[in-house]
């Protein structure tokens, strides 16, 4: 059969020319995208305070548009106490900002143009956490009208793990949680349609987030949701606490960590420069290492913690805490402070000097600084201090330090020295400036008041946590005898990880040497720190 080369060449051109044109167009569009996407996340370099309050630390969770409507779409998950118990901010212990709040989000929810995990530029805003989310708390006197927002202590009401459980339960609902329904909910609430780029980013995020949750179901089990996210039987972490080592075990060692009960109070971050080794077990030295690992435990990644803006925010936030001072008792409770007696405070100072100063140091009245005690900074072995052992004895504890160290590549901005990380067999003695504001007490938040901590009063074995008011008499959190709308979390010290035993200084309750009068004096003195 005759073959026409001319026609064959023509046919070839019919394919080649459009192919060349199409490829050229694709290349051009790709280059335009790369140039344009750089501008989506121009880094902002904030000062210390601004970084602490408003700076992303790489913990982006969801698109901003989703954060604004999600609780409304899923009241069954985000209002576990029912509508009458308040909105999700109230029910999970977040802090509502003073002043105008158009996004309706709590303090510490910050928006950025970084995508979760990768930190890649996003055309739509994503919401993550800043340091202030966890490291600020509300202190409201029982029966009082004034609420103080104190920067520095852990948020005693924040039930972050419960909230995460609710979020995961919502995200796994494939019928109700779709881009179309999110867009519809947004439009109904704000009278404004979502843009195409927002819908695109929501779709991409939802698919990725849901796939990750589903892939992890065999390892971590399903979330509870359906009003159970705050139940201690379901999510035992509870208000004011985290499980940082479980996060590390899951993300770094890739193990379920489901048998761990390492509940740790969200740490106060006053005067971080006064501590050489920090975290309750004295395991981390370098301040930036502490902060970067805290960010990592909260959801940041090695990748996004290398981005210039996030590096800057973590460092600036850390620097903010170097000299961060806690409030004085007289500032927050002037009436109660007026009841203190100079004589009793002086006697209490003596008791403190004899029984507490060695480990915790004392204020320097001349400089306003802190005088380090002889045993301050030491690790007190578990066998001596007798507090809850889970933090020290958890499975995989021996491997964590090496594994975490190797996690950071050598050129990473937060690569620390191996010598700055250690495994200990006890808890570190730290300064206790603004002691009254650090409630609840012990590393696992198992003791509600200073009065109970020093064994002036018996430590309660069952109490109820949530949005606890402050008791300035006993210097700590007030708990009713029965649960109610604000005090929903039943804290049982007999459960694993919740022990309130140990640290029986100066004396065990009604034990040998126990002196109620001296303890009253000591309590008065502690309120002045």
């Amino acid at each position, binding site marked *: 059969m005759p073959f026409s080369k001319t026609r064959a060449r023509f046919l070839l051109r019919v394919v080649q020319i459009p192919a*060349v044109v199409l*490829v050229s167009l694709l290349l051009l569009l790709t280059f335009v995208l*790369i140039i344009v996407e750089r501008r989506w996340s121009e880094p902002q370099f904030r000062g210390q305070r601004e970084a602490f309050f408003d700076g992303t630390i790489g913990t982006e969770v969801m698109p901003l548009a989703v954060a604004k409507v999600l609780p409304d779409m899923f009241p069954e998950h985000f209002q576990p106490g029912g509508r009458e118990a308040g909105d999700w901010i109230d029910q999970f212990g977040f802090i509502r900002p003073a002043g105008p709040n158009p996004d309706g989000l709590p303090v510490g929810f910050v928006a950025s143009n970084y995508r979760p995990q990768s930190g890649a530029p996003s055309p739509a805003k994503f919401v993550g956490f800043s340091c202030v989310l966890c490291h600020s708390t509300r202190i409201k006197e029982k029966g009082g009208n004034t609420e103080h927002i104190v920067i520095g202590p852990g948020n005693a009401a924040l039930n972050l793990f419960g909230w995460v459980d609710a979020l995961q339960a919502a995200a796994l609902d494939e019928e109700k949680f779709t881009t179309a329904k999110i867009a519809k909910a947004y439009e109904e609430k704000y009278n404004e349609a979502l843009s195409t780029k927002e819908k695109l980013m929501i779709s991409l995020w939802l698919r990725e987030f849901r796939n990750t949750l589903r892939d992890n179901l065999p390892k971590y089990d399903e979330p509870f949701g359906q009003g159970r996210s705050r139940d201690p039987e379901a999510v035992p972490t509870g208000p004011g606490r985290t499980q940082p080592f479980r996060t590390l075990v899951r993300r770094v060692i890739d193990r379920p960590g489901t048998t761990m009960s390492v509940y740790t109070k969200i740490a106060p971050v006053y005067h971080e420069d006064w501590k050489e080794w920090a975290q309750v077990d004295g395991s981390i030295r370098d301040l930036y290492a502490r902060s970067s690992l805290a960010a990592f435990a909260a959801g940041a990644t090695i990748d996004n913690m290398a981005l210039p803006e996030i590096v800057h925010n973590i460092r600036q936030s850390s620097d903010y805490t170097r000299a961060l001072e806690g409030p004085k008792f007289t500032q927050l409770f002037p009436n109660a402070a007026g009841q203190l007696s100079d004589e009793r405070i002086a006697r209490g100072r003596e008791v403190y000097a004899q029984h507490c100063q060695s480990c915790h140091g004392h204020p320097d009245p001349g400089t306003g600084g802190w005088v380090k005690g002889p045993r301050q900074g030491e690790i007190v072995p578990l066998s001596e201090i007798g507090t809850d052992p889970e933090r020290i004895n958890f499975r995989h504890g021996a491997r964590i330090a090496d594994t975490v160290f190797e996690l950071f590549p050598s050129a990473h901005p937060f690569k620390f020295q191996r010598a700055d990380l250690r495994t200990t067999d006890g808890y570190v003695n730290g300064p206790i400036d603004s002691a009254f504001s650090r409630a609840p007490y012990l590393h696992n938040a198992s003791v509600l008041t200073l009065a109970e901590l020093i064994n002036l009063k018996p430590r309660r074995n069952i109490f109820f946590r949530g949005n606890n008011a402050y008791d300035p008499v006993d210097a700590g959190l007030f708990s009713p005898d029965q649960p109610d709308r604000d005090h929903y979390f039943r804290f049982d010290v007999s459960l694993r990880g919740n022990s309130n035993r140990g640290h029986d200084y100066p004396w065990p309750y009604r034990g040998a040497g126990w002196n109620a009068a001296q303890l009253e004096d000591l309590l008065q003195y502690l309120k002045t720190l």
Partner: protein
Amino acid sequence: MDTTRERMITLTHFANAYVPFGILLVLALLVAEQSNNLNLYRTIYTIWTTTILLNLALCFYVFRRVSRAAYNHWLLFWTFSYVAYLFHFYWAVFLVFGGIRETFAGQGALIATTNFIITLWWGADVLLAWLAKSERKWIRIQRAAAHVFIFAAFVVTATILRGGLVRWLGIILAASVGLCFLIRLITWEPPPKIERAAEVNPRA
């Protein structure tokens, strides 16, 4: 073969090289959007693209004197693989390492120096290939050396210093170029001898 006379690039030659280059580069840059580290994965995927295109360039280099088409394909793939490599170089040096000094600190002097030599030498040869009017002896020798050096660097890096898919790309590169070379050796025919005509007027 006078290569300058042979450099009459047709649409077919161009499309054969440009279309795969474009598709691979677009994929390399866009697929990285789904990764956990955009810059790192653009660096990785662009070196995959470079390796694939370089593979074709080196194979055509072996046969470049066989025909005009082979020569042009070599030139085009040599050029496009270098362009893809420049994308990789930019992402690696300026976005992943954060600068030239940081690259030397991160990679070590030996590897960084080798990479910079590749970047400069390859680019110089591409320019020569397009701009030089003829392939003089020194150009041929440096070109051969450049090809051998770049081939060796890619094969050693991919097969020894890396793992996963990159190692396989390196193995395929080594095997296919080796095979092409072998075929060329087997099929090579020396040019016919031109016998000198006898002198017409020998001196008496």
